[in-house]
């Protein structure tokens, strides 16, 4: 890995972790587990626009690991990881299919799959079907927050142009 690339990815990791930690300190809007804005995903989306999937995954994994360590809960690491990995796979596939112009759709798909991943992890850990009662609410929240983060990334590209000025 070139030094420039390393610096660039580290910078993005720092931004993502910062957003992640700040968001965790904000009071939750709705008292339901899993419903949150997922602002850190904006960084993942921006990287998806400009870098290769490998780089995106590196930053995503580093963010989840560091975020969980700073958040202080090992349980949340499992939830973040299952959601993050599924989200990454879905977004990479979607981005390849529909291109950069529709990043907000990719983002919504990613958010939905992130919540699906978390639901599956909750099913696995809690061994209760009662979790599924949250599925519709999580889907709706995923669509809304995914659209929001996606539009953030979309406007980022509009401002920054086709190449990162780094």
């Amino acid at each position, binding site marked *: 890995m070139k030094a420039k690339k390393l610096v660039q990815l580290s910078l993005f990791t720092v931004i993502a972790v910062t957003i992640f930690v700040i968001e965790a300190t904000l009071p*939750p809007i709705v*008292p*339901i*587990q899993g419903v949150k804005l997922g602002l850190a995903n904006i960084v993942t989306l921006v990287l998806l626009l400009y870098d290769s999937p490998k780089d995106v995954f590196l930053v995503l994994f580093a963010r989840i690991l560091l975020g969980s360590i700073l958040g*202080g*809960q090992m*349980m949340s690491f499992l*939830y973040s990881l299952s959601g993050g990995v599924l989200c990454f796979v879905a977004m990479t596939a*979607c981005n390849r*299919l*529909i*291109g950069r*112009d*529709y990043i907000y*759709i990719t983002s*919504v*798909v990613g958010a*939905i799959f992130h919540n699906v991943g978390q639901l599956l992890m*909750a099913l696995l*850990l*809690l*061994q*209760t*079907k*009662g*979790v599924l*009662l*949250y*599925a*519709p*609410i999580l*889907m*709706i929240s995923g*669509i809304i927050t995914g659209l929001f983060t996606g539009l953030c990334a979309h406007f980022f590209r509009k401002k920054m142009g086709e190449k990162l000025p780094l």
Partner: protein
Amino acid sequence: MPKHGKIKCRSHALSLKNHMDNDRMESIFETRRNDMQVNRMQQRKWAKIIAILIGILAVVSVAAVVMTQLHKGNGRCYAMIYQDGELVEKIELWKVEESYEKTFYSASGGENTVMVSPNSIGVVKADCPDQLCRKQGMTEGGTASVICLPNRLVIEVKLVESTKENLDAVSR
């Protein structure tokens, strides 16, 4: 091919360009443009399909939420309390006459105090960091679930199906 200098190379390219039929050049550009356009159209097509799928999912989810809200009713309900994935208690909430509290301990040392009330249940005290289970408050009516992820506590509230047996039990 002999080695080309810079100038030679350019002249070579120029001559090639001259030799090349203008129409052919045009057709190459044309196909490339067409390829890009086809790609664009493909992308737009897929974007439409995915957007429609998301729309369907949204409609289904909203319908599901509305259905559960409508289904809540004020019927008699019971609560199943799961700790660490195991059913530890089943309370028939409609039989409860006076509220009481009960504390559940998870395998990892977490504590949740559950308030059991007539036809209602909720977490009133918890030592989890996010306190989301407590903030969900008391349930109203049937079909709900209260979850504490860190302590792995799940309270499932379900309506008693109004079978003949239950009706008999009431009339008695």
